[in-house]
């Protein structure tokens, strides 16, 4: 019996596109201080007809996961038409939303017309002062909690994402408490990234070393508690589709080989965090870009080179959560350039593991992007 991880490994190896993240719009009803969106980017937005064509093409390519992000995807003028079309075409739809407007009619329409597999929502703090300070919209914290309860009551599967920042790092435990109380999983990403145009101003919100260390400690602590509560593990654990980490491939990640990202103007990139211009949907179809883009071909090769280079870091390689896209944006273009964030992360995680004197086999982590 083939495992899902093995199938995922095959998608990486054989360049079988499986997950597509679509940034529908940069319109947003919040205005987060550290948002990576490049609001200066210009271009012709994809039309509704172009989105429908894209979905047809992706379905024909057997793409399974469609992630609608932004901006606030629900603020796109054609969100429901696109979402319903995605559902009709059998995609597993994930919505990345700030949750601010997900109440009442909108929440119900989302469930009934788009039927997302999951809605991933960002939490910025455990207190209104902190959350609203980051989102720059007064009242957004209270509104979010209310909407999360509403979504749960509707039976919508929800997950919370949070980027650890210098402003909220003291509240990680309280944020987990909020999530537990709501019965919603919460995943932290300890890394603040530069803006997509290269501007580094978001980095001023980067969490402190101690903040990151405390988060890792907390995560281990919670992992232990969950394990103790759950008792012995079943042999096979069913996972969400894109959480499976392929084993033994020659590539560091699936960027450009099993997944891509598309911005509101039709620009195609290997990953939402690795913005190498790989084609534009105004000029070519996604099939043409997928099979013909020289940039994607190079990226696929670079993901192999990254794997080779990281091997030199021994056991630290697995602790770095290295992202070639971040490496490229931080070094001015080199996806192999090891950056502070990655080595620091390995060091901190190493320390925390040493405290525990137990080395886990691997740490599963994905970015909250």
């Amino acid at each position, binding site marked *: 019996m083939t495992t899902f991880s093995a199938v995922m490994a095959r998608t990486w190896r054989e360049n079988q596109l499986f997950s597509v993240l679509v940034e529908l*719009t*940069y*319109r*947003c*009803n*919040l*205005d987060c201080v550290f948002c990576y*969106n490049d*609001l200066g980017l210009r271009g*012709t*937005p994809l039309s509704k007809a172009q989105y429908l064509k894209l979905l047809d093409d992706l379905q024909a390519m057997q793409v399974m996961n469609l992630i609608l992000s932004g*901006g*606030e995807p*629900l*603020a*796109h*003028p*054609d*969100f*429901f038409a696109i979402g319903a079309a995605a559902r009709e075409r059998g995609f597993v739809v994930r919505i990345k939303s700030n949750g*601010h*407007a997900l*109440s009442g*009619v*909108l929440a119900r329409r989302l469930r009934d017309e788009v039927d997302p597999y999951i809605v991933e929502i960002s939490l910025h703090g455990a207190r209104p002062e902190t959350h609203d300070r980051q989102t*720059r*919209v007064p009242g957004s914290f209270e*509104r979010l909690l209310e909407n999360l309860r509403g979504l749960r009551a509707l039976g919508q599967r929800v997950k919370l994402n949070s980027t650890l920042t210098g402003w909220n790092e003291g509240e990680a435990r309280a944020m987990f408490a909020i999530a537990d109380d709501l019965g919603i999983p919460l995943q932290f990403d300890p890394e603040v990234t530069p803006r997509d145009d290269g501007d580094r101003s978001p980095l001023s919100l980067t969490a402190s070393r101690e903040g990151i260390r405390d988060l890792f400690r907390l995560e281990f602590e919670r992992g232990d508690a969950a394990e103790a509560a759950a008792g012995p593990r079943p042999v096979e654990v069913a996972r969400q589709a894109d959480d499976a980490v392929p084993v033994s491939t020659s590539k560091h990640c699936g960027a450009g080989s099993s997944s891509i990202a598309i911005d*509101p103007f039709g620009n195609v990139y290997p990953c939402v965090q690795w913005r190498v211009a790989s084609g534009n949907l105004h000029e070519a179809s996604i099939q043409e870009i997928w099979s013909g883009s020289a940039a994607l071909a190079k990226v696929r090769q670079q993901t192999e080179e990254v794997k080779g280079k990281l091997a030199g870091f021994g056991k630290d390689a697995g602790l770095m959560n290295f992202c070639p896209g971040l490496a490229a944006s931080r070094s001015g273009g080199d996806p192999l350039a090891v950056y502070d964030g990655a080595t620091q992360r390995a060091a901190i995680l190493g320390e925390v593991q040493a405290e525990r004197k137990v080395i886990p086999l691997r740490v599963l982590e994905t970015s909250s992007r």
Partner: protein
Amino acid sequence: MSFGERFLIHPDLFPARLSGESWGDARLNLEIAGTSHAIEGLTDGQAASMAERFAGFDSGVPAKDAVRSRVFRMAPEEFRAIDTRGWNYDLDQDAGETWVRIAGMRFVARLAWRPDLEGALWTAASDVDFPGVLENYLRVLAAYGLAAAGGALLHSAGIVDDGEASLFVGVSGAGKSTFSRLSLDEGRQVLSDDLNALRPTTAGFEALAVPFAGDIRSEARTGARPLRAIVRLRQGPEHRLAELRPAAAVALLASCAPYVNRDPFRAERLMTNLASIVAGAELRELAFALRPGVWSLMGREVRA
């Protein structure tokens, strides 16, 4: 009712930053009350209908220091259906330290100081009803732009006499349009019978026409004229001219400075501007009757 609810089905989707889906690649450059405006993101049709509507204010090339506005598409389903019979159209307005937001029929807008003034307009209006929407937006933008520049946009009739402009201000129904017509008949030029701009210069304030339609469309809409007088206007049985006290003049102007006068974050700024306008102008109160001769009275008394 909280902000936007009158017009929007999902007020929580209100844009918090200036971004979205442009309608097209066309742009328009307008000169409004001495300020260049660059309006981007239009369809060719939208740009053409606007250029026609604002003919004479089209400045052709974008100025370097132009106030930038971007126009974005918004779904018609985001707006409530409104029965406009017997309804007084009034925009919803909300303000913060560095921003202003507006909701209206088939559009929402946001102004931001970052630190220079910029704006964005999201609308569901297609070509036909677009000019009206853009005009509504530009009126707000002009009002805030002028206030920030030390001036004001004022509901008033602006009449040019002997190269100088006087603003006639009054409650609605005071007879601004009627007075403007009488003034035209007496050979005076009308800047606008509805909305006029005042801007500070090194030599006092100047009055300018704005391209927003009143009943009377002036021929010479772009020229700036030195401000002579602020006149409270009302109709009466006889032409009669009297003095107006400065405090009363400031209060009067404040009541006629649309949008900005409702904004708690900019009230102080506005009052300061109005006080300096009043300090440099002749202040009068005029009752006028529906017959000729009012300007001989105005001229004689005002210049005396």
